[in-house]
């Protein structure tokens, strides 16, 4: 395939991945990697390198808006970034030594898990119980504005949330994705944060987490300009359009259709991984 044709196909696919990723909340990385590996036969190491770059672009772009609105809890974000960056570097180093087939299998499993998570009804776990010692010490409790009203919230189970973030960071570094689904579990279910705060703070953390593993990938030669260029431009454009559409569209049905497609892709990746062993 010529460079021009390859670039055009990847650009188009990455646009679609960014658009769907932002509409469903799954993120562009989990879609562009199967697309590159299954449809174009790109080695998963290159696909991961390109994807992690697009994660930095989209998360920094949207974090900019959320931070200005004051929803993001910068202290929680930075505190947990210690866990995610350590995890990300460990994950990226492991990825270097791991056979591409194993990575594909793990990727498929995480993909199915993420698809299920987007379909699950979210339950509000927020609390005003300010007794957590860690939360007090690190001053993690806060408030966020919603329609002009300030909502207070308290943070619970800080060590458990921290551990979960270590795991989320490792997967992010291993697979080149934002692993937003895991981050949101750690913050919603374990630390009891409100959705708005957890999703925006998770997004805020993604950039630094991805940067930590991207640097390892860069040194390893996994970031190829010929793939990374169309992937990050396409995903960022798609995600930007998606966030504009999101305000108007109803995404419930789209999420179901999309979860089915993603599960199908995941099974293909697992199958490909197993048959290659």
């Amino acid at each position: 395939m010529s460079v021009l044709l390859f670039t055009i196909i990847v650009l188009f696919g990455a646009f679609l991945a960014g658009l769907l990723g932002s509409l469903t909340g799954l993120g562009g990385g989990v879609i562009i990697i199967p697309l590159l590996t299954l449809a174009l036969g790109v080695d998963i190491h290159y696909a991961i390198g390109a994807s992690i770059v697009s994660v930095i672009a989209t998360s920094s772009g949207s974090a900019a808006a959320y931070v200005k609105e004051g929803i993001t809890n910068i202290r929680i974000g930075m505190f947990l970034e210690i866990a995610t960056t350590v995890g990300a570097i460990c994950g990226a180093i492991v990825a270097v030594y791991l056979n591409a087939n194993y990575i594909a299998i793990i990727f498929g499993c995480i993909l199915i898990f993420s698809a299920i998570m987007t379909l699950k009804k979210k339950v509000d776990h927020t609390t005003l119980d300010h007794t957590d010692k860690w939360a007090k010490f690190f001053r993690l409790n806060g408030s966020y504005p919603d329609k002009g009203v300030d909502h207070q919230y308290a943070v619970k189970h800080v060590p458990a949330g921290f551990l979960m973030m270590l795991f989320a960071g490792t997967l992010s570094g291993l697979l080149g994705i934002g692993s937003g689904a895991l981050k949101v579990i750690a913050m919603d279910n374990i630390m009891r944060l409100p959705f708005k705060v957890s999703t925006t703070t998770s997004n805020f953390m993604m950039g630094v987490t991805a940067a930590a593993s991207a640097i390892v990938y860069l040194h390893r030669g996994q970031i190829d300009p010929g793939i990374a260029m169309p992937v990050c431009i396409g995903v960022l454009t798609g995600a930007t359009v998606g966030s504009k559409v999101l305000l108007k569209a109803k995404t419930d049905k789209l999420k179901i259709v999309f979860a089915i497609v993603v599960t199908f892709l995941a099974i293909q990746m697992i199958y490909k991984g197993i048959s290659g062993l």
Partner: protein
Amino acid sequence: MSAVNKNINDKDIQVILGTLLRAGVIISMTIVLIGGIIFLIHNKGVITDYKVFKPELAKFSSIAAIFKGLLTFHGDAIVQFGILMLIFTPVARIIFAIFSFLIERDYLYVLIGLIILAIITISLNGGLAH
């Protein structure tokens, strides 16, 4: 009074942080786009092969190599430079956060910021990848 002051400070920091992130993304993606166009003009007919991961063929796999490549004005070097700037956008955000917490006299979070920066510096050590 001090609580009010702190709120204003936090709000200012949020606005500057947001602007920094947006500017970083826009600038680096513009560089990637320009490099990409130059790359396509020169290489459009070349046949791609990404079927097998060949790290030894990677031309720009260190910061030094990217800067050296940049002097040649090759499209792929410019793309890689843009990507490098994109990677350093969140890192710049951490550095800014450290300074803003220093102004707020929140030394615990100055320390946390420094820890994150140290972790990222460790990853800059290319030896980790080999």
